[in-house]
């Protein structure tokens, strides 16, 4: 376990990870938001962002990067609080996506970003049908007036600079997607007939991992996440992998692999629970909604 890397130029393969202190608590929880509610809000905001990414036809890498940036913004006592700032979680998701797309080959304009998020806020929380349609539903008013747009744009820039400041400009995100393909090739599992099936399953797990309440992209390196996704995908598609500890070739030990596999498998149940818990009720994404929800909880507790 002694071999380490310093500035050997592997930065494009590795991520900054959250420190134990950052994982221990968050600014929101210090502000009195219960953990389960915080988790629900995180999940809901990440879903919102993913839906926006699909509507904006952005590559999944960009969406994934923005979701990771979003989670980085939230963790730790110095992170962004759900209660404190005068912007909504929707603004934070929009700013994160806008910020990540900006220096890439798929830059999006503020008005594109804001319009899509505005539209989604109208149809929330049921995205699945819209994402498949080509044209947004006619009977929903998704237009932003010039004045509203101006206000929203200023808020977008403000939240963008807040995110950058909180992250100390650490917006570099290494993703496991290409590593995953690379590993499948190394294992000789991608060339076979079932190769595309296993790759698809593995990619699905990588996407799902973005939404894990365990914040896997903030706690594990991309190599480990890719390996776990392959392990699970191979089991699911009945592809045989070497009967040795092949994951060690990718510098993942058995313990991490085991944990990640369990974590990946648990996301589905988590998502179902969330759906059941909230039903058609909206997860609070603004400070006001959040306050109302907290009040409702207190009242329930008091048995009213």
């Amino acid at each position, binding site marked *: *376990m*002694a*071999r*380490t*890397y*310093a*500035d050997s*130029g592997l*930065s*494009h*393969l*590795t*991520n*900054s*990870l*959250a*420190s134990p202190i950052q994982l221990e608590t968050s600014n929101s929880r210090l502000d009195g938001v219960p953990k389960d509610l915080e988790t629900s809000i995180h999940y809901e905001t990440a879903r919102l962002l993913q839906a926006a990414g699909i509507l904006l036809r952005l590559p999944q890498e960009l969406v994934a990067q923005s979701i990771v940036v979003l989670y*980085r913004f939230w963790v730790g006592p*110095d992170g962004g609080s759900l209660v404190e700032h005068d912007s909504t979680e929707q603004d934070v998701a929009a700013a994160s996506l806008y*910020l990540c797309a*900006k*220096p890439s*080959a798929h830059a999006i*304009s*503020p008005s594109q970003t804001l319009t899509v998020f505005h539209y989604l806020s109208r149809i929330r929380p049921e995205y699945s049908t819209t994402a498949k349609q080509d044209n947004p539903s006619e009977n929903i008013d998704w237009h932003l007036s010039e004045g509203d747009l101006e206000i929203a744009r*200023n808020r*977008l*820039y403000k939240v*963008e*600079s807040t995110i*950058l*400041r*909180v*992250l*100390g*400009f*650490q*917006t*570099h995100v290494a993703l496991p997607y290409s590593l995953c393909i690379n590993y499948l090739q190394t*294992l*000789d*599992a991608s*060339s*076979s*007939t*079932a*190769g595309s099936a296993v790759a698809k399953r593995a990619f699905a797990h990588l996407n799902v991992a973005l939404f894990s309440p365990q914040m896997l992209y903030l706690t594990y*390196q991309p190599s480990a996440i890719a390996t776990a996704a392959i392990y699970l995908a191979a089991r699911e598609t*009945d*592809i*045989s*992998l*070497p*009967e*040795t*500890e092949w994951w060690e070739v990718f*510098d*993942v*030990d*058995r313990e991490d692999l085991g944990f990640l596999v369990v974590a990946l498998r648990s996301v589905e149940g988590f998502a179902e629970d969330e759906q059941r818990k909230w039903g058609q009720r909206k997860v609070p994404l603004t400070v006001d909604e959040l306050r109302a929800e907290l009040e409702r909880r207190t009242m329930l507790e008091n048995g009213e």
Partner: protein
Amino acid sequence: MPSRWAETAEDAAEDARRKAEKEEKKRLKAEKQRRAEEAQKVAQQSNGHGEDEDDTQRPAKRRRLSEDGGKDVPVEAARTLLRFETPGWQPCRSVERFDLLNHIEEGSYGFVSRAREEATGDIVAVKKLKLDPARDGGFPVTALREIQCLNAAKHRHVVDLREVVTGQGAAKEDVYLVMEFVEHDLKTLQEDMDEPFVPSEVKTLLLQLGSAMEFLHDHWILHRDLKTSNILMNNRGEIKIADFGMARHCGDPPPNNLTLLVVTLWYRSPELLLGATTYDSTVDMWSLGCIFGELLTKQPLLQGKNEVDQLSKIFELCGIPSEDNWPGFKRLPNARTLRLPSQSKSAQGSIVRSKFSTLTNAGVSLLNGLLSLNPAQRPSAKEMLEHSYFREDPRPKPTAMFPTFPSKAGQEKRRRQATPNAPVRGGAAPALGEIDYSSIFKGREAEEKGGGFQLKLV
């Protein structure tokens, strides 16, 4: 079963063998355990309690893999796995932790000052960014790219971005880049030198530049604004590439909608001048060629007054492009207006040889290579480092032997630079096909040509 790891007949035989081995192992294990239990019983009997039982019965954590069965296998040593040591992140610190010392320079991107970090006493360069969210669409993309590229490019010959800090209180939107302080830039330094760098020094400088470019290109970073004023040098003869305001990440194949507003005119490659929107690391290599020439003579190599003049100067020095030496160049957007002198009338070779008469043949070949009109013919940074020019005498001078110079940045304000500035983003990009290059060779057809290409004296 579809995968390579699927079962075959041989596998089945192998399986059977393995199974037998396993059985044997199991038997031995059971035997061993029985003996252990017996021993334990004895022990228990002797000291009268059995709490340790659980411990001994728990199977070993690590699954055994070696298959030389039968014998008692020693527990395998843990294999070493590569561990990534990564930094975390924390909110930007305040610029108040730094004492500003003196002003160094102002550019289109912001102000650079020399400063001392209070906690450590380190001298650093602090660059305050010019921010205008309404104009730039939030945080400027150039600054974002500069920060991302510098964070990704930790290299001995790339300026070190130590951290990004912000202002305090009312000025908390201000952003400053804290970088290592380097005493000189090559541009100012050359202006103050009486003689150009000697050949051995030029080689050392080029090798350092080459290694930085190799690293950047290996990491898919294009600098896109290499010039002597962006190349810093410390008092130990070490070079640091700076100013990544134009830099960006790219892929292979390169994206096809890259901006043309890159690279300061004098260092801009012919394909950019001709309007290519798909280009790659070879634009940096062209700039390196220009810098090579500049280091030899102390004068910028190709000082065009505008795009048209720049291209004409390039053709004067490097020869005239043809379908042979640059297939496909005529399809570039701005090439349509280009009227080339007819093939027969003039010899169109490069005059690098005659212009740099004291340079060795190997040196000329490297310079000619970097200044190839056809981007595909330019050497990569890696190929450049392996060039024979660096292996012939005089050998590259060790950096420690470099002369030292008084640092302008250290105390005094710098002289205004004579180099044209890098193109401004959002400025008026010449529309494709708009630049009229038809005047470049005007009258040339009529000129009487001697043996070779003559440098036009203006």
